[in-house]
């Protein structure tokens, strides 16, 4: 774990002091404001009840469940191949990445290994869904701060990535392409070259965003020093992905654990930022898209030949046992704890989704900030409602 730097300690203490001042000095009657469940800034149906003193937030309490679909219950009556359809819809912007940890966990229990070609293609698609997901964040963050133009660029360029995902899987949003033991199909002809072109577009997009959004003085004024998460607090709340790396914790499952994908054979870099504020989270995600382009590019070069499907039984019964597999998904760590009793259906699946933990810090984080910063902090934490509510 990274040591907390002095500057951040001071910022943390200052935040706490500001917090205390709000509570004792201003004795005006507060106002309770319901942000959501239908509100332009909540990407779905998150509702946040904030107690305001003027423009300052005294207490914030997220309320969710408006989209709870009971996936953990449903998985108990679905066969393993059917479950990928469900988990596709957890983080709906990076669907393919949702399937991967589940399939890997089932493969670990079955002691099956996907052929190398399948693993490389999985990695490429995994990172493409990261690009499709995070590119939208890069534009959307601008919208939350009032700049409406970047998000149109994001939608435009994400389309090219979605086209590539669709070309392989047949599904733009919900590929449902991963199988226990490999993949449904091989790559279509000409896909690799087309994808290279798309990666160039995305790199250009990243340069644009770095210039237009991250480089904008107003954007920086709105995000620097706002929503600072010290590393230790972030860890105890279980933040993951760019949110925790922006607090200076150098921990990326793609590099630091044996996920079952081929990231460790590739040459790329894990970016961190020491500040832990909204800007740092934006900046880290921006770099991660670039790294994802690098990873996909190397995957395209290195995909070995061979089958894409290992020999697995036609009717999949997973042997009894328990396994927990997590991967570094676009939103952060996503893991599945599978308890199997050797049947067609799992006995219990605990879905550990990234946004649930990421948003659980908000009551702590939103104390004492201004109303406009509530929005920018929420945007910078980057959650998907399906990923919170499951």
């Amino acid at each position, binding site marked *: 774990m990274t040591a907390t730097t002095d500057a951040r300690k001071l910022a943390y203490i200052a935040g706490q002091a500001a917090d205390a001042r709000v509570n004792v000095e201003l004795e005006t009657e507060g106002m309770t404001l*319901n942000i959501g469940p239908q509100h332009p800034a909540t990407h779905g149906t998150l509702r946040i009840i904030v107690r305001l003193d003027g423009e300052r937030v005294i207490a914030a309490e997220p309320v969710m469940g408006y989209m709870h679909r009971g996936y953990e219950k449903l998985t108990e009556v679905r066969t393993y191949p059917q479950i990928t359809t469900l988990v596709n819809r957890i983080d709906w912007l990076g669907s393919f990445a949702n399937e991967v940890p589940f399939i890997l966990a089932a493969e670990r229990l079955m002691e099956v290994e996907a052929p190398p070609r399948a693993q490389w293609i999985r990695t490429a698609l995994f990172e493409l869904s990261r690009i499709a997901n995070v590119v939208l964040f890069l534009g959307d963050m601008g919208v939350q701060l009032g700049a409406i133009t970047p998000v149109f660029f994001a939608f435009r360029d994400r389309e090219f990535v979605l086209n590539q995902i669709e070309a392989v899987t047949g599904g733009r949003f919900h590929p449902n392409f991963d199988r226990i033991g490999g993949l449904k199909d091989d790559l279509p002809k000409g896909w690799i070259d087309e994808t290279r072109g798309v990666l160039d577009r995305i790199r250009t997009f990243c340069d644009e965003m770095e210039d237009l959004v991250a480089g904008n003085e*107003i954007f920086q004024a709105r995000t620097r020093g706002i929503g600072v998460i010290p590393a230790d607090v972030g860890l105890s709340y279980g933040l993951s992905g760019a949110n925790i790396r922006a607090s200076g914790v150098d921990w990326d499952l793609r590099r630091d654990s044996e996920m079952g994908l081929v990231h460790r054979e590739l040459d790329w870099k894990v970016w961190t930022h020491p500040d832990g504020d909204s800007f740092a989270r934006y900046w880290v995600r921006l770099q991660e898209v670039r790294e994802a382009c690098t990873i996909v590019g190397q995957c395209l070069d290195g995909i070995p030949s061979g089958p894409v499907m290992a020999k697995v039984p036609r009717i999949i019964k997973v042997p009894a046992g328990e396994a927990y597999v997590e991967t570094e998904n676009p939103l952060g760590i996503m893991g599945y704890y599978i308890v199997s009793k050797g049947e067609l259906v799992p006995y219990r699946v605990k879905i550990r989704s990234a946004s649930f933990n990421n948003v659980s810090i908000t009551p702590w984080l939103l104390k004492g900030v*201004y109303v406009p910063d509530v929005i920018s902090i929420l945007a910078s934490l980057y959650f998907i409602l399906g990923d919170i509510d499951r």
Partner: protein
Amino acid sequence: MNTLILAAELAYWQQTSIRAVVGLAAVLLPAGTLVYLFLFKMMSFMQSRLGPMEAGPYGSMQLLAEVGKFLQKEDIIPAKADRVVFKAAPYVVLVSTFLLVLVIPGGPDLMFIDVDTGIFLALAVSSISVIGILMAGWASASKYSLLGALRATGQLIAYELPLVLAVMGVVIQAGTLNMQGIVMAQAQGEIFGFGGIGSPFIITQFLGFAIFLVAVQAELIQPPFDMPVAESELVTGYLTEYSGMRFLMFFIGEFATAGIFSALAATLFLGGWYVPGLDPTDTLFNVIGPMVLMGKVILVAFLIFWFRFTFPRFREDQLQTLAWKVLIPLSLINIVATGVLKVVF
């Protein structure tokens, strides 16, 4: 307009109705032009999309469709709203817009009223909209509206000051508060002995022009100063509860005011209806003057909307800081410098 009308010996009611019709056109035509040109088209092109394309050639009739849409919509008033104030608020905002247009000259003889305190009157009536916004926010009985209205009030009052102070430089240089006089001063003036293009004050008062534009941006509640209507947090601030016709009035008010502030900026800093090289007393300007002015309005409005579509928004405290700690001191320095130079030369 005075001479033209007098020449025809029109009765008072005839003059008044002509003025009313021309005034309405002077408010609505620029507003419509700006909406189509900038909101529909320029914004779309900046965002790599086409914008409206179906209604008429290049979507030029889209505006009528939009107006028709708003007119058809149900007029909803929240249950707990203060109905009278709620209904009155859009009119109060529009009143300020219509009063503003009165002082802007369109040619040597073409103006609604010729008052010696023209610019003073304009800046005074522009503040009326604050009351309308506060009424709208309060009467909506919505927390978002209230927050938005309070932010808007704080912001409009803060940016009123740099707006007025930026104009002071022009007034000192022109030596008059009369709008026509300011145009004439620019048409007949010369810069350090060179009078070929007159003396558009944007050259000598560039700092004033910049401050004026920034303050106008804030007065219009447009990004980067759109915190009162910040759609990602306050939904649309004081407009949240408005729908149909009343929303349309706010909308027209917003774009008409954008047009009129552009016209003010064009008149104060770009020479108004005057084109260099011609005799400003030529009656030809009564014909081409409004068109010249409109061209300059579109130029200034381009700048205003360019900022609008490009920048993220300041937080409330940041924009107050900008007004009080940057813009006001700068404009005071500008006034002092202008005064000193005026005395020296």
